């Protein structure tokens, strides 16, 4: 349905709320910024289905005809090499990672599930694979089954149901938030419209990420260079840290190990995250820790 011209936003998933009118959000220990580093592990299929979603983010060389050795293997680098570099860095800095895992990663790389659990990562749901994005083309039944299956696979592999969801390529239909809430998910990261968490409906909260600070969006889609990206991370943090003195901010950053885990890039990520963690008043926490706190401390 096209928008109706009336006060408020043009969908029913959450209320309109400009940040300028909100009460003060206080983080634990009066931190100014809650820092959430999300690490996305999604598997790129050798032979993607014909009706899959062909993401523009394909590394330096674009999409080739089948079989696309460079694309497949470039992405797989993240699972074989990059992830460990990224997790080591986060551990050194004292940042608990929130790891996004799709079904093909869970089932094809059981080592990574155990490795991430062993390092205390929170693991959240993603979908089936890199090429399969939720969209309005799915029926209600298809989409519900798609999400339920991803949740079930994670539950079986990790021993507990994921609390969070971050869909492949931020994909949603009009129904996605409702389905996520019905399936017991507490927070969703697909909505990039804020610098604080907010309540959606039926127990579901939004944990907004900064799209412009998503390494894949910025470096792979937009082709911004790594030095500039690192500067964006630092500049963005500095302003959120300043603004967070008045009203707490959430800085959620989505990192892809196949990209930021490359040897020539990791140092820049270390420099930027190190800059953030060098400040007092930064609360590095996982997605569910942030949402649990927010739920109990929502500003009036």
């Amino acid at each position, binding site marked *: *349905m*096209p*928008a109706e*011209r*009336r*006060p*408020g*936003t*043009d*969908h029913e998933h959450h209320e*309109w*709320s*400009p*940040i*300028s*009118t909100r009460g003060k959000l206080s983080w634990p220990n009066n931190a100014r910024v809650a820092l959430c580093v999300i690490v996305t592990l999604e598997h790129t299929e050798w032979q993607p289905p014909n009706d899959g*979603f062909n993401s523009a983010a394909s590394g330096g060389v674009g999409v080739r005809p089948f079989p696309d050795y460079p694309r497949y293997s470039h992405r797989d680098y993240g699972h074989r090499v990059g992830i460990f570099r990224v997790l080591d860095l986060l551990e050194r800095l004292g940042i608990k990672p929130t790891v996004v895992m799709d079904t093909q990663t869970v089932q094809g790389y059981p080592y990574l599930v155990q490795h991430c659990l062993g390092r205390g990562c929170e693991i959240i749901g993603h979908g089936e694979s890199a090429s399969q*994005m939720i*969209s*309005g*083309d799915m029926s209600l039944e298809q989409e519900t089954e798609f999400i339920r299956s991803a949740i079930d696979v994670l539950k079986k592999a990790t021993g507990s149901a994921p609390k969070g969801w971050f869909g492949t*390529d*931020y*994909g*949603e*239909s*009009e129904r*996605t938030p409702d389905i996520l809430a019905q399936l017991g998910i507490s927070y969703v990261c*697909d*909505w*990039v*419209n*804020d*610098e604080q968490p907010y309540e959606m409906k039926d127990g579901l909260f939004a944990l*907004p990420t*900064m*799209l*412009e*600070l998503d390494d894949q969006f910025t470096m792979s889609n*937009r*082709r*911004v*260079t790594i030095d*500039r990206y690192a*500067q*964006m*991370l630092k*500049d*963005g*943090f*500095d*302003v*959120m840290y300043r*603004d967070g003195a008045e009203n707490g901010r959430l800085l959620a950053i989505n990192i892809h190990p196949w990209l930021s885990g490359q040897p020539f890039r990791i140092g820049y990520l270390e420099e930027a995250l190190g800059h953030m963690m060098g400040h007092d008043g930064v609360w590095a926490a996982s997605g569910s820790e942030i949402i649990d706190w927010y739920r109990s401390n929502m500003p009036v």
Partner: protein
Amino acid sequence: MSLPPLRVDYSPIIERPPIKWPNGERVALWISPNVEHYEYMPIQDGPRNPWPRTAYPDVQQYSYRDYGNRVGFWRMLEVLDQHKVRCCVSLNMAVLEHFPEICKAMVDRDWDYMSHGIYNTRYLYDYPEEREREFYQDNINTLKRHTGKQLKGMLGPAISGTDRTPDLMAEAGLIYHTDWMHDDQPVPINVKSGKLISVPYSIELNDSALFRLNYEADYFVDMCKRQFDQLYKEGAESGRVMCIALHPFLIGQPHRIKFLDEILSYIKSFDNVWHTTADEIAEYYIENYYDQAVSHAQQFKA
């Protein structure tokens, strides 16, 4: 000579009688934030697909832009207030209806407004004549109702239009159209009735053009400074117009906002700049230069 669509008479800038701004300023500077709303579930009505990435909705792209209204606008406003900038907004009129806090913030600052359509996901391309006429009345009435101001100009919704657009704008009483990226000064646009001019907007000094590509805000600063320096130099002979086009969802990002401050600080360090709006530029130009420009251009006709 004039080339199709015969809307603008050719007039080389080096031959034109000089333009003097009201107090002899060299550059008329206007800042144009695009205050927009993109629909969650638009209807594709014409050749352009509002959300081409996926079946609707595109939550990533929708919420990216929604960020502008929830967060970015307010951060941008702090910097504009520090520099006492009175903007000429490129406004999706439905913002006035959806987001009363934004409406109030703009009205409190006595900003000017040009229409940027109703929503940024509703384009003019396939509008029949009568529907386009109604569109202008809707824009005029909505702006008047919420801000008390009379609509004077338009940047088409997402810079869309029809062949008839300039005629119908003029018929509705509008005086300027900013879809034309063709000049550093206002120039007359030929219309069936009334008077219409173009006022230079910019698709280059425009965060939305830059930041979808691999340019970042340090480069934007450099572009704006160089643009200003060159126009300031040329403006000693004949007044120039400079527009900086902004989008709150882009310039209001935390990693970018200091660069807006840098641009405005630089320009504010110069005298002889007319800090103004497109409304004021258009009225001044029509009052003082429109007739002269029309007759002067006759000599260049083929």
